[in-house]
Structure formats: C-alpha cells, structure tokens
C-alpha cells in the first residue's frame, strides 16, 4: 500500500534511491517536499543507474508553469524589427490563469536562412503561435522559438477580419479578398 507523506519526512538514503519529482536531497537523504502519496518506480533494465526512483504525487491540480522545452500556445501582442512579443496562454494543453510574457527573437524565428528573416513577414499582432520555450530568458519574459516545421502561426486573421487559410510554409490567403499575406506558418499534419 502506498504511504501518505508530509513535507520534511525522510524517505530513503541517496545511496540506494534516486530523487524524483516532489522530493529534494538534504544531507545524503531524500526528503518529501509535498504532501501526497509516495511512489517507488523500479529502474529501467539496462540503464546505468540501477537505483529505483522515489517520487511524491499530489492529489488535485498541479500548478502550471512554463518549463524549458515545453510547447506553448501564445498570442502575438507587439512586433518590432528585432523581436515579436507574445502572451503565453497555454502550456501544452493546460490553460494558464494569467498570461506570462514571451519574446521570439529574430534568430529564433526559423532554422534556415536565419539572417534574412523579417519579423513583419513572419508574425503580426493578434496571431496565435505555437512555440517552444528555449530559455527562461531575462527578468521580463521567456525566450521562445519557432525554428521547427511544426511551430509557427496556427491562426491568423487577414486585414478584412476573416480567418486565413495557409497555402505554403510562408504564405496565408484570405478566402474573402483572395489577398496573400506572408507569415511563418506551422505545418500541422
């Protein structure tokens, strides 16, 4: 039967177990940092470290924070020649209560020909963009990147106010006015 532990409880020594989520290491012992049910996960066969992993799982909602490597959905708010500023609305498929700020720098927009990028031809204010968190950034915003095929603009409205249809990885077309606008489009297939 799994045991319920309190923060500060000493679980196992570091010599025989590895610390997982919900725990921390202090003076050669693994202590719990959350109140919840503790789990023991056996090590994968064939891996170097044969110690089982101790973790504490909490019942209820997990707090949502963007971490390195997370795929986020954000809405572009400001655009200037060096970067595009966006409000992060969802982390993975979990929505946030209040939006964090992220910026997409010129060198992070795409992987190929990164020096010939023009921000205004890639994003416009109001676009919904799928991006990846590449760095916790400076004091004000996370650094995001769309330098992969499946990252980029997923929803944009044309000048006429109608949702545009993507026609290539660089262009989207308005179905009403037939005008073509340039964006860095995400490949969603």
């Amino acid at each position, binding site marked *: 039967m799994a045991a319920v532990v309190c923060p500060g409880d000493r679980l196992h020594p570091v010599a025989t177990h590895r610390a997982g989520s919900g725990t921390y290491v202090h003076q050669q012992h693994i202590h719990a940092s959350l109140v919840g049910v503790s789990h023991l996960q056996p090590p994968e066969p064939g891996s170097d470290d044969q110690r089982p992993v101790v973790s504490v799982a909490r019942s209820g909602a997990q707090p949502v924070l963007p971490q390195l490597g997370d795929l986020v959905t954000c809405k572009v708010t400001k655009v200037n020649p060096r970067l595009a500023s966006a409000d992060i*609305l969802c982390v993975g498929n979990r929505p*946030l209560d209040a939006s964090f700020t992220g910026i997409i720098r010129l060198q992070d927009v795409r992987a190929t020909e990164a020096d010939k990028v023009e921000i205004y031809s890639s994003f416009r204010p109001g676009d919904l963009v799928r991006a990846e968190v590449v760095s916790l950034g400076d004091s004000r915003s996370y650094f995001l990147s769309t330098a992969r095929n499946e990252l980029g603009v997923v929803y944009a409205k044309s000048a006429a106010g109608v949702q545009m249809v993507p026609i290539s990885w660089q262009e989207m077309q308005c179905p009403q006015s037939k005008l073509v606008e340039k964006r860095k489009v995400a490949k969603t297939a």
Partner: protein
Amino acid sequence: MLHSKAERAYLQQGFDAGLRSDGRGCHDWRPVEVALAQLPQASGSARCCVGGTEVLVSVKAEVRTPTEEAPGCGGIQLAVEVSPCAGLRLQGRGDEELGAELTRALERCLLSQANGAGGCLDLSALCIVAGKSCWVLCVDALVLSADGCVLDALSIAAKAALADTRIPLVEVTQADEDGDAELELDDDPTHAARLDTARVPVLVTVSQVGAALAVDLNAEEGACAGAALEVAVDARGRLCGATMRAHSAPLHPSSLQEMLGLAQRLGPRLLRELDRQIGQSAAAASVAMQE
C-alpha cells in the same frame, strides 16, 4: 481570469436560449446556505454561501447616546470589508474602495430616512432612556470569497444576522439627583429580546445579458453582462429601493420596467427560502440549549 471572445459569445448565446453552464435557468439562484450564530462573541451573526461566494456578518449591540434629531430611536452602523483572501486582485486601495461601495449599497437597502420612521427596522424599539441612552447595532460584514452576487449574499447574511441578534434586557435604576440612570444588563440569553426583521428587504441584482434578464451571475457570467440593476424587495413584493450599479452599461427605459417586475417576483421567493432556513437554525439552537 482570462476570457476569450469565443467564450463570451458562447455564454451570451446560452443566455439567449435560457441555458446556463451549470444547468440553472435564467431566474434561478445557486443553492443558498445560511448558518446562524457563527461568532459566539457577537450579539448576532450569520454566514451566507451562495455558490462560491461566502460572506460573514456580525452584529454587536452597544449602548450609546442617541442623536439629537432622533432622541427616542436607536441606530444602525454598517461597515463592509473585503478580505484579501477573496482573490479579487485589486491594485492599491481597490479593496477599500470596493468595501466602501458595498457599504453604501447595503446602507441604502437597510437604513431609511434620518428620523427612523418608515424604515425596515423599528429603531424606536432600540431606545432605552429617551435622550440619554439607546442601543446602536454595529453591523460588520466580511467578504471571504467573491464569485459573483456579492451584494445579494451580503443582504441575505445581514438579514439573517439581525434575526439572530439578541439584545440583553436592561434594568434602569434611578440613581442620583441629576437624573443619570444606572443601567444594568441582564446576561441571561433566554431573557434577551429579539428584533423584528419581518420588514427587512433583500437585494436582488438583475442583469441584462444579451437580450435576456438573469439573476445571480457568477464571476464568469458577470464579465459578459451589460446593464445591472440592484433592487431591494421585501417579503410582500414591495420595492424598497433600486440603484443602477456604478459601472453598468446604459439601460433602455422599457427594460427598466421588466427588471423591476422580475425582482418583485423573485424577491419574495428568496425571502421565503431564507426564512425557512432561519427557522430551522433557530429550532436546532433552542433544542441544543435545552439539552
């Protein structure tokens, strides 16, 4: 809370069709729970939960000198505080301003003209010695959690707390020559007098969402509402006051009539439910005291 345009459009279309996200109709309240005698140190207290909104009201009776305009009447003093736990995330002094706004709204509902006559509570019953001393009821309300419909919950809790208030019996003994009477308070709770709260009204906030009229909007629905009217209604369906909320959208005069009519129909229904719960609470308390 963040709301997208799609969410707001969804909620408005639901209201137009008479549907709400928790299955209620447009004229239904969330379950209202009232518990009396929450604070043993006060003369009367009540806690009211309407869905996620929770308020706590305490009434303390103090002996003071009456005012010069009304020497034969007691008084009521109201104060509403918004707890930081309520999570309204107002910057700077926003909490205090909201508390002041709620206090004034509740005062307009409960208090009356300066002379005390025609109000919902008989203030002359609070007089001890005319011109010398009277009871003043200090009503303190605390908003613990706000999920829409805060003013309605405050008025319900205030009425319940006033119904729970026990005023100790006072013996007036003629003391010395200059006529200053000595007051002796009887501490026995079974000898205490109760207030007559039959005429105290309750506040019903009627809001307009799209083309539909609705009561008891939670925080999400409140963000999509247009005009809002706060109407004070008593048990017989008579109007005791109506105020348009300070930040509400403008109102068409014909909708005004409809909103007042709706409040007049729904107010007595809410008051009957409240009286039933107060009666249940009082019966349970008297059984407990006899044991």
